[in-house]
């Protein structure tokens, strides 16, 4: 007889073996030696967590109670996997390309990264999974006591609660150890998956061995078994009708939506092609698992005493036939089924809880000081561990609360119906671009509520929240609201009733609300990414997360950081890793560091996307793209600002250049002005000096001579004075410091004054001057003396330079609206074109010959005067002789003009 102690010892050794397997697999994975761990066989075996202790033990119980019903639980998943081309292929592709970590993440990501949706799905998953976990604890605890009670070794059967408690603790420790070792971007757990694969083999072997023992050991072979089956009163009607269809549908849904199934099918998938193998291998596994269920059921019914729990036939048959070793194997098989399910479920749920509930809360609480990445990592791991412990505690609490009274199958189906609520939203999200976040939230919440009302709460049979009376007669006695007979539909199986109502309400609301609501831009982009995933991503599997080539990284780093910097960084890391001159190993720390370094150059999002391309082989998600676009926009803004600044600088430089040019011109002008002035002053000074010397030194000068010489000195002094006056005048005018004295007068008077002033007494006035009569009619308000000065200059110029034999000066007066135009036209030879601008320059004289008594400042002064008066003077070409036009405004310029 097996003693209870041996049982515990074997179980402990078995767990130790699993620890070893998981540890070794994790170590190999971290060294990049994935090899067979990424084979399709391991993938398929890991899917076997679908067959939990519920199916390991419960299938036989179900066959005894409901005939063929247990088959529906396997046929649904078979259809889903056989039809992988429809849904699973797309699901896995989306999961990989969007770096999905859980089903909550998938739905939230599809519907515009909705945090609320993630929270809803997480809560739903936790609520639906808790009874399921309780179920596993219960079945293992029961198998323990089944052993102990039959053992007859004098040891009291252990308390079921105690067993379940220690089991929960042990599972929590295992899950925490191997489920949270690394927070990997891809959330893959090679150790756990490998251990699960080993357990899958154990449970299959156990069940097949029992089956073979039952068929050929207890019964008389296949023929005998078939006879027994047809003799047994099995419920064949269970394989048809609405419950059969509903169960097939439910199990098909469950294999897609159960968080733990999503974890192994999508998240832990390392190569899409593994699905090809799993498409037939997983149904084959299920086939083998259920092949002997009917034989065990009929033999158990016949052999075991009436009243035995059919849920434990698998275990009690070998015990009854004294097959201790076989019983032990079966026990381990059941133990494996339970533990692998709980471990993976706990990992999947803890990922969801910590990613979508704990972390957002934590980040929100300490928003002001967040930004410490190492810190966040620690928090993440800690929150995972706490979540795992909390989930197992919940499962244990549920187990204690329900007292383990219910038949195993019903709990499983309740959980299935709960998670099935995610199906419409999931399928809609993958195939319908019009599905919106609002629709998803409303549909999910409604389906969840109907499920809770019609199935979950009634399952407590009146012991929690919903009273037995409410279940029987509806709340407040309203029969139409009876949880198991909504709108008076009675006589339907409660499960089918709940399934049809919850899924119906869920789907209809999801579609209706989606149709009338409008998705956000992010939602629409994600919708396209999900629905058209095969157009946006390649089917090539990644080279494996850990097996990144260091040279790939180096090439990329060189491209971005430059050769020298990249090489320096790589050498440094290689030295730190103790690798001397070689390339460093692409450890996660190194990749992290490289990403940080790169992000300094190209921005965090871009760096993440680039590293992700090399390490994860995933495509860039919309979120990444948006972040990249943000960075690009920032860079563009910076460069636009720089461009504007450089334009401004260029403008300033141009202005400075112009100013500089002007200054140089001015300086040249000043120099030439000074040299001209000294030249002009020198001529009279020289003659004054020489005559003064003659007067001083010569004693024999006649009076006549002395008077003449003194006269010359006087004349030259006068000329000198006049020159200085003119220079002063010009300087005053040029600086605009002149004070204008405005007066109103007739233009003809100003002209007459000018003419008479130019007549030098005693000289022959050869010049004939003709003034047009209009000058009489024009009144002008300006500085009349200054204007006269200009006229004098022009008239005396005509007198001096007009070389005609019969010189004549025509003064024509015209008037515009606000300007008076006075033209001085003589009949001389005029000024050659090339000199027309020069005549207005200082000290410009066209020929020295006729320059008697002139410093060449007249026209320069005239131009300055006109400028001050708000008019101008210019040469008027094409008039037959020298012609100047003076333009004066009728009304005086602004007084301020004189100040400037």
């Amino acid at each position: 007889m097996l003693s209870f102690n041996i049982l515990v010892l074997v179980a402990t050794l078995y767990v130790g073996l699993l620890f070893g397997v998981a540890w070794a697999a994790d170590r190999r994975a971290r060294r990049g030696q994935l090899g067979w761990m990424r084979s399709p066989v391991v993938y398929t075996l890991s899917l076997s967590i679908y067959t939990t202790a519920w199916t390991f033990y419960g299938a036989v119980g179900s066959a005894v109670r409901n005939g063929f019903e247990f088959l529906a639980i396997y046929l649904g998943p078979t259809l889903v996997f056989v039809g992988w081309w429809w849904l699973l292929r797309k699901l896995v592709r989306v999961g990989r390309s969007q770096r999905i970590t859980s089903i909550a993440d998938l739905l939230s990501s599809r519907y515009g990264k909705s945090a609320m949706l993630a929270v809803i799905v997480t809560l739903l998953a936790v609520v639906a999974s808790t009874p399921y976990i309780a179920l596993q604890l219960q079945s293992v605890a029961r198998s323990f006591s089944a052993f102990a009670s039959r053992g007859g070794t004098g040891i009291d059967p252990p308390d079921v609660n105690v067993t379940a408690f220690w089991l929960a603790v042990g599972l929590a420790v295992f899950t925490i150890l191997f489920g949270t070792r690394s927070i990997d971007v891809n959330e893959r757990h090679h150790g756990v998956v490998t251990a699960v694969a080993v357990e899958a083999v154990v449970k299959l072997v156990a069940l097949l061995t029992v089956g073979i023992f039952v068929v050929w050991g207890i019964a008389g072979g296949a023929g005998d078994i078939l006879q027994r089956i047809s003799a047994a009163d099995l419920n064949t009607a269970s394989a048809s009708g609405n419950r059969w269809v509903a169960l097939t549908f439910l199990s098909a849904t469950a294999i897609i939506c159960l968080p733990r199934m999503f974890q192994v099918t999508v998240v832990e998938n390392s190569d899409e092609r593994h699905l090809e193998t799993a498409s037939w291998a997983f149904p084959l596994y299920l086939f083998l698992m259920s092949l002997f269920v009917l034989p065990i059921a009929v033999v158990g019914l016949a052999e075991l005493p009436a009243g035995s729990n059919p849920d434990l036939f698998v275990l009690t048959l070998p015990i009854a036939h004294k097959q201790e070793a076989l019983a032990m194997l079966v026990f381990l098989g059941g133990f494996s089924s339970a533990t692998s399910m709980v471990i993976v479920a706990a990992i999947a749920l803890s990922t969801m809880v910590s990613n979508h509930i704990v972390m957002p809360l934590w980040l929100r609480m300490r928003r002001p000081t967040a930004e410490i990445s190492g810190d966040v990592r620690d928090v993440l791991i800690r929150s995972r561990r706490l979540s795992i412990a909390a989930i197992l505690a919940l499962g244990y609490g549920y187990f204690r609360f329900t007292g383990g009274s219910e038949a195993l199958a019903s709990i499983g189906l309740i959980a299935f119906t709960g998670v099935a609520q995610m199906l419409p939203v999931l399928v809609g999200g993958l195939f319908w671009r019009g599905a919106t976040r609002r629709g998803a939230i409303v549909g999910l919440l409604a389906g969840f509520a109907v499920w809770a009302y019609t199935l979950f709460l009634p399952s407590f049979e009146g012991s929690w929240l919903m009273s037995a009376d409410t279940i029987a007669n509806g709340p407040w006695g309203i029969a139409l609201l009876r949880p198991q007979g909504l709108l008076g539909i009675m006589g339907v199986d409660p499960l089918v009733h709940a399934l049809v109502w919850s899924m119906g309400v869920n789907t209809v609301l999801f579609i209706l609300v989606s149709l009338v609501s409008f998705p956000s831009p992010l939602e629409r982009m994600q919708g396209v990414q999900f629905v058209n995933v095969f157009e946006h991503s390649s089917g090539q599997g990644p080279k494996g997360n850990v097996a990144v080539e260091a040279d790939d990284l180096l090439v990329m780093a060189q491209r971005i950081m430059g050769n020298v910097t990249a090489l320096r960084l790589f050498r440094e890391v290689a030295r730190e890793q103790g690798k001397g001159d070689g390339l460093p190993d692409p450890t996660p720390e190194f990749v992290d560091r490289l990403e940080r370094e790169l992000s300094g150059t190209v921005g965090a999002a871009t760096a993440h996307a680039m590293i992700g391309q090399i390490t994860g082989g995933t495509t860039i998600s919309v979120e990444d793209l948006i972040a990249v676009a943000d960075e690009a926009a920032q860079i563009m803004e910076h460069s636009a600002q720089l461009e504007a600044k450089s334009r401004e600088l260029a403008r300033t430089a141009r202005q400075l250049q112009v100013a500089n040019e002007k200054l140089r011109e001015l300086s040249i002008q000043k120099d030439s002005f000074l040299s001209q002035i000294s030249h002009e002053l020198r001529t009279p000074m020289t003659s004054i000096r020489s005559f003064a010397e003659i007067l001083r030194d010569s004693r024999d000068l006649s009076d006549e001579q002395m008077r003449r010489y003194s006269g010359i000195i006087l004349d030259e002094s006068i000329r000198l004075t006049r020159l200085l006056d003119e220079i002063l005048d010009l300087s005053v005018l040029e600086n605009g410091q002149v004070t204008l004295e405005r007066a109103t007068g007739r233009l003809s008077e100003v002209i007459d004054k000018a003419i008479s002033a130019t007549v030098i007494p005693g000289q022959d006035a050869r010049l004939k001057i003709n003034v047009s009569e209009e000058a009489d009619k024009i009144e002008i308000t300006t500085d009349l003396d200054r204007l006269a000065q200009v006229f004098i200059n022009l008239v005396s110029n005509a007198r001096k330079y007009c070389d005609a034999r019969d010189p004549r000066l025509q003064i024509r007066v015209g008037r515009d609206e606000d300007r008076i135009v006075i033209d001085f036209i003589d009949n001389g030879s005029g000024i050659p074109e090339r000199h027309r601008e020069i005549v207005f320059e200082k000290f410009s004289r066209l020929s020295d010959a006729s320059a008697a008594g002139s410093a060449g400042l007249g026209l320069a002064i005239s131009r300055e005067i006109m400028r001050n008066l708000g008019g101008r003077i210019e040469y008027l070409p094409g008039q037959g002789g020298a012609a100047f036009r003076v333009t004066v405004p009728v009304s005086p310029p602004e007084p301020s003009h004189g100040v400037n």
Partner: protein
Amino acid sequence: MKEQVSPQFLDRRSYRRKRLIDAARLLPLFGAVLIFQPIPLLFIPSGGGAVTLAVYLFVLWLGLIVSAFLLARRLGRNAAAD
């Protein structure tokens, strides 16, 4: 979305692949119909004995598995040849 211009006639291998995909898509529908048991219901008026039913379901199941195996193998080989 830009309209994709696909050739009207595919070469033999692409054509074969498309039909294989069609078969892979139809297989679960075919299986679902048979699982919901029109044949026992239609042709065995009494619903058949438990053995008949069990044999029917398990043979159907195995048939699905074998078909899926053949399809997956040919699809895999076909894709590898591309």
